[in-house]
C-alpha cells in the first residue's frame, strides 16, 4: 500500500471524482434509450427515480466502506466473506472496470468519428485516448483527482450554456401530456436510467483515502443531486425540442440537440465543438478512473508493481474496445456492461453490508475516534 503514495483527500474531492466517473457516454444516448422503453414524454421522472435508487445504493457503499476505515474494498471484502469469495468479488469488480473503461474508449472513438474526424480510423483515436489515459493514471490517484477537480466546473459551464442557448428551440407542448399511460408505464425506464448512473461504486475504493470519510454523506448526496439535475434537464430539453417520436429515431439525440444551436455570421457559427470537446474530457475521466481502479485491484491482489499492471492492462482494454464489429455492437456492449455494472454495484455492497452487520463487525470497528481525528 505504501508503494502507492496516496495523500488523503477531502470528502468534497471524493464527491467530484464520483460525479466525474458517473458522467460519461450515457448522456449522449440516454434520451433515446429511455424514450424507447417508456414511450411517453414524461421520461424525466424516470431520471429522478434512477437518481434516487442509485443514490441509496451509493449510501450503502459509503456506509460499508466507513465500517472499515482506511481499508479499500479489495482488502476488506476478504474480511467479510473470506479469502475465496472475497477474491472472486474483487476479480468481478476488476472485470467490470476493465470492460467499462474499454467501452468508454470505444464509444469515444465512435463519437469522434461521427462528429470530428470522419476519415481517421477508430483504432488510432482509441489508441491515443488509451495512451493519454495511461500517462495520467501512472501519475497516481492524486493526479486523477486533481484533473477531475479541474474538469468538472468546465463541464458544468458548457452544459448549462448549451441548455440556455437551446431555450428558443424548446417547446413546452412537446413534453406534455403528463403521465398519459399512468405511472406504471414509467417502470421499464428505471433500469436504463440507473445504468446511466453506474460508476458510483468508486466510493467503495476511494473512501479509504478520504479524510473525515464519515462526513461524506452530504457531499455525495449533493453530487447525486447534481448529476440527476444535469441528466433531467438534458432529457427534458432534448425531448422538448426534438419531440419524443423523433428522439427515438436518432443515434445521438443529445448531439443533434446541441447541433441546433447556431449563430449565423458569428465567429463561432456552430457550438457543438465545445460540447464534443468537453464530453470527450468526461469520457476520459470515466475511462482513467476505471483503468486506475482495475490496476489497483490487480496490484493489491497479486502485488505486482501498479505501473506494470497498467501497462499490461492497456492491450487488454484496447482488445476489448476493438471487439464490437460495428456501432450497434458497441451500443449493445454498453447495454450489457451497464446492466452488469448496476447489478454488481448495487447488490454486492448490499449483501456485504448485511453480512457485516450480522457479524456485528461494525460494532467493533465503530470509527468513533476516526471522526474526531483532525
Amino acid at each position, binding site marked *: 500500500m505504501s508503494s502507492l503514495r496516496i495523500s488523503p483527500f477531502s470528502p468534497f474531492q471524493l464527491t467530484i471524482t464520483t460525479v466525474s466517473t458517473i458522467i460519461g457516454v450515457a448522456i449522449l444516448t440516454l434520451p433515446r434509450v429511455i424514450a424507447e422503453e417508456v414511450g411517453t414524454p414524461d421520461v424525466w421522472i424516470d431520471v429522478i427515480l434512477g437518481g434516487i435508487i442509485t443514490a441509496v445504493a451509493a449510501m450503502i457503499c459509503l456506509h460499508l466502506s466507513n465500517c472499515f476505515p482506511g481499508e479499500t474494498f479489495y482488502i476488506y471484502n476478504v474480511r467479510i466473506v473470506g479469502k475465496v469469495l472475497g477474491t472472486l468479488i474483487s476479480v468481478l469488480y476488476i472485470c467490470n472496470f476493465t470492460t467499462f473503461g474499454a467501452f468508454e474508449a470505444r464509444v469515444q472513438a465512435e463519437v469522434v468519428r*461521427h*462528429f*470530428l*474526424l*470522419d*476519415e*481517421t*480510423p477508430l483504432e*488510432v483515436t482509441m489508441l*491515443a485516448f488509451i495512451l493519454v489515459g495511461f500517462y495520467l493514471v501512472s501519475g497516481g490517484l492524486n493526479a486523477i483527482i486533481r484533473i477531475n477537480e479541474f474538469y468538472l466546473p468546465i463541464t458544468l459551464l458548457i452544459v448549462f450554456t448549451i441548455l440556455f442557448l437551446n431555450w*428558443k*428551440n424548446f*417547446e413546452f*407542448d412537446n413534453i*406534455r*401530456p403528463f403521465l*398519459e399511460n399512468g405511472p406504471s408505464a414509467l417502470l421499464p425506464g428505471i433500469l436504463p436510467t440507473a445504468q446511466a448512473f453506474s460508476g458510483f461504486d468508486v466510493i467503495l475504493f476511494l473512501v479509504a483515502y478520504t479524510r473525515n470519510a464519515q462526513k461524506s454523506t452530504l457531499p455525495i448526496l449533493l453530487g447525486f443531486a447534481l448529476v440527476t439535475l444535469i441528466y433531467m434537464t438534458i432529457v427534458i430539453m432534448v425531448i422538448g425540442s*426534438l*419531440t419524443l*417520436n*423523433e428522439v*427515438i*429515431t436518432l443515434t445521438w439525440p443529445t448531439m*443533434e440537440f446541441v*447541433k*441546433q444551436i*447556431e449563430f449565423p455570421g458569428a465567429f463561432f*457559427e*456552430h457550438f457543438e465543438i465545445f460540447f464534443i470537446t468537453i464530453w470527450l474530457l468526461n469520457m476520459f475521466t470515466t475511462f482513467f478512473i476505471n483503468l486506475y481502479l482495475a490496476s489497483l485491484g490487480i496490484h493489491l491482489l497479486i502485488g505486482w508493481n501498479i505501473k506494470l499492471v497498467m501497462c499490461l492492462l492497456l492491450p487488454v482494454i484496447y482488445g476489448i474496445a476493438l471487439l464490437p464489429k460495428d456501432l450497434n455492437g458497441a451500443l449493445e456492449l454498453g447495454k450489457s456492461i451497464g446492466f452488469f455494472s448496476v447489478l454488481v454495484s448495487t447488490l454486492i455492497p448490499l449483501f456485504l453490508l448485511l453480512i457485516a452487520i450480522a457479524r456485528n463487525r461494525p460494532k467493533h470497528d465503530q470509527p468513533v475516534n476516526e471522526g474526531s481525528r483532525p
Partner: protein
Amino acid sequence: MSMMKARSLPILVTLLLCSAIVSSGCWDRREIEDLGIAIGMSVDQAIHKKRTSEEEKQIVHKHKTIMPISVTYQIVNPKIIGGTSRGNPSNQKPYINITSSGDTAFQVARETATRIGRPPFFMHLKIIILGDQVSRKINLAQLLNMNLRDTEMRRTVHLTIAEGNGREILEAKTKNEDLPSFELLSLIDNLSKSIHIAQPISIGTVSEQLSADSSFCVPRVVLHQKEMKLAGAAVISGKTGKMLGWIGEEETAGLNLVQGTGKSEEGHKGGIIEAVIKGSRDPFSYEIGKIRSKIIPIVKNGQLSFRVDIKVEGRLGEDWALNENAFEKDYLDRVNAAVKTRIEQIVNNTLKKAQKDFRVDVAGFGKQLHIHYPKEWKKRKENWDEVFSRIPVSLDVTVKTEEFALKGKKK
C-alpha cells in the same frame, strides 16, 4: 536532478518522434480553399432520359419504383465573393450551380465529383428547395433522408417548396444578396413584415412532423419574371409525406393567425390586415404587433369540437376614411370590430380549405387534443387527418388597437 534528466531525455526524444509521425499524417485535414461550400440545394424530378443500354436498365434499376431525381447544388465562388474589390471584372457569377441526377441523393452528390474539382461540402448548407413535382410524388422523408442522416448536414437547414423547378430559384435574379440562396433566406426572415409568408420550417422540424405522422405546411417560393417571391405554402400529408397541394397567400395568413406567434424570434409574426368598416368604402390597414393563439379541444358528451382563441394586438397604420377620428374610442371600437370580422373570414376560409379540400390538420389541432385528452386522442389518432376534417371548429377573436401612430384625424 541531472540523473533524472539524463534518464528522461531518451523518453522525451522518443515521444517527440512519435508525435512527428502522428501529427504529420492527419487523415481529416481539409484546407478551406479546397472546399466547395454548398449554401443551397434544390431537388427536382429528373427529366426522363433513355437508359443507355437495356442491360443497365435491368441491373441497376430493377429496384426502382420511383423516378430519378435531379439535384442542383449552389456552391460559393470564393474568387468573386471573397475578393477585396466588390467590382466584378470577369463578369463571373458569385456562385456556381452544378446539377446532377441519379436515384438517391447521396449518389448524386458524389456524382458531381466527376465533373467539378471541389465537390459540394455541406457543413454550411442553409436552404433546400424542392420542386413541386418531386414533392408530390416522393415522400419527403425519403427525399431528405440523406440530409438528416449525414453528419456533415444539420437539422437547422430551411426547407421551401418551389412552384415549378427548384433549380430555377437557384438561378433567379438577386437584389440585396450575392447568392439566390441568401436572397431566399432573407425573404424567410421577413415573416414579421408580411402575414402572407408561411412559418419557416427546418428539415429537422419536417422530420419531427413526419415521425409523428402529422401534416404540416412548407413555405412556397414562386418565380415571377426571373425574380423570386415567397408567399403561400405547400400542404404536406403526414401519413404519406407527399405534397397535397398549395394554399394561397390569404389562406397562409389564416394559418399564421391560428398558429400564433412562436416563442422564438424566428417565429415572430406580423403583417398587415386590410379591412373596411361596415357601411364605408374606404379601407384601412391594421398592422399586427402580436398574435396570441390557443387551440382548445372541447369534449362534451363524447362529441369533440375545437375552439380557436386568437388575440391580436396592433396599430392602425393607415386609414383612407378621412372623415373619421381615431382619437375617439368609438371609432377604434369599430376598427376592432372590422378587423375581427376580417380575421374570422380569413381563418374560416383557411379552415374550410384544410378540412374540406385537403382533409388534413396542418395547424396542430391533434397535438392539443393529445395533450388535453390523451384518451380521446388514442381513439382517433390512427386516421386523425380524416377525423379532423369532420370536427367543428369555432373561433373566438379578440382585436385590440393599441395606437394609431402619429396622425389620428384629417383635421
